[in-house]
């Protein structure tokens, strides 16, 4: 496929036309995957022999944590695209993704706390993973606040994208700094591509479906929010033109 065709979607009109066709399918798929994955996970998997039924929160906790990080990565990519090629859709997509990513971070923190209470005996521990997620939440907060604070759209897009780049470096740095700062209580990664042992298969397959559901949900929400932003901006432009005329 010719990569140059990808930039066609940077045209807002083309973007809206395409998402008109794509969005319903993505939304339906997201709901389907979420329902199947969560129902399968909650009702048709056995209890863990040590954790009992609390293990089932994994079907919300792991996907949301995954998306919290990937949302920031997506913002990083779209910010770069904005800085290099100055496509407005790209900046708007970054703006649209931030609150979704922040909510995912909160969900991961909350479900982790709910699971930690019976299992670790505490709602919160200053474990590296927990701490870096809290810091990630603060980064989301600052990023969104900066978007909200600046009136001029292009200035806001420029400043937030640079903040996103700088923030990514410091977020990574913080991740390793907190590792150095305190010993971990959190278990290792539940799944990775290069590891022999993952979670047992009974938990693994519904988890994969749930993750697919969260990814699709994220894509659907970001597309929807980006469309809303594009239309809001177009409406502002039309209103301004009317006032002038």
């Amino acid at each position, binding site marked *: 496929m010719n990569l140059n065709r990808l930039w066609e979607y940077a045209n807002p009109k083309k973007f809206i036309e395409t998402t008109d066709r794509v969005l319903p399918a993505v939304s339906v798929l997201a709901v389907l995957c979420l329902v199947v994955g969560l129902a399968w996970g909650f009702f048709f998997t056995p209890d863990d022999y040590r954790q009992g039924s609390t293990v089932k929160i994994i079907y919300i906790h792991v996907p949301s944590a995954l998306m919290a990080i990937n949302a920031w990565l997506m913002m990083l990519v779209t910010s770069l695209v904005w800085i290099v090629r100055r496509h407005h859709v790209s900046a708007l997509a970054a703006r649209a993704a931030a609150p979704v990513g922040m909510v995912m971070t909160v969900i991961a923190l909350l479900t982790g706390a709910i699971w930690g209470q019976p299992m670790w005996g505490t709602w919160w521990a200053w474990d590296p993973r927990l701490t870096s997620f809290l810091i990630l939440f603060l980064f989301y907060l600052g990023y969104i*606040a900066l978007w909200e604070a600046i009136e001029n759209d292009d*200035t806001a897009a*420029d*400043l937030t994208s*640079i903040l996103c780049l700088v923030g990514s470096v*410091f977020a990574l740095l*913080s991740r390793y*700094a907190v590792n*150095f700062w305190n010993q971990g209580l959190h278990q290792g990664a539940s799944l990775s591509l290069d590891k022999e042992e993952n979670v047992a298969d009974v938990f693994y397959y519904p988890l994969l479906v749930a993750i697919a559901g969260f990814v699709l949900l994220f894509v659907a929400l970001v597309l929807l929010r980006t469309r809303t932003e594009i239309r809001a901006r177009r409406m502002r432009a039309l209103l301004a033109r009317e006032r002038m005329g």
Partner: protein
Amino acid sequence: MIALLLRDLRLAMRAGGGFGLGLAFFLIVVTLVPFGVGPQGGLLATIAPGILWLGALLACLLSLDRILALDWEDGSLDLLATAPLPMEAVVSVKALAHWLTTGLPLVLATPVFGLLLSLPSKGYAPLLLSLLLGTPALSVIGTFGAALTVGLKRGGLLLSLLVLPLYVPTLIFGAEMARRGVDGLDYSTPLLMVAGITCGTIALLPFASAAVLRVNLR
């Protein structure tokens, strides 16, 4: 560059420049801590490195909006932007001036404040060293934050929200180094990390600050 540095220093020293405000704030924080946690010497000694680092960080934060806001208001920032001096140099000088008027006095005053918090004597050298190495990074990162929010009417709170997460790594390694020093442990790893963060931010962050400032001056 030197002229700009001298100008900034002179402005900060003179009346209304706020020189010494950071120090006074630092003193107040250190005074308030024993009221909050109780006057036991042992407890104070354990938390002294963290308190001193936090106090220095907050005092630094307090004076950040002064770095660029005044120059923005009276238009001298526009003049600097059209001057032959590159923007990167301008923000570097601004950060240096901020460190000389805020960071350095804090470092120099730390031994006295350490005394107030009954810091063990072997903790002084690593604490001073960590602050000396770490506070330049605080000034440089703070200049980036100040450049981000310079055009905003009420940027103060937003500035803290943006800058504090960026301070996390510096604070972790700096305070860890001071803590290890107090406990008599080897502190070369956090020392290298603090030094690395400071060198990295001094080398790279002015480019981001200058880019942001150019956007804001557009």
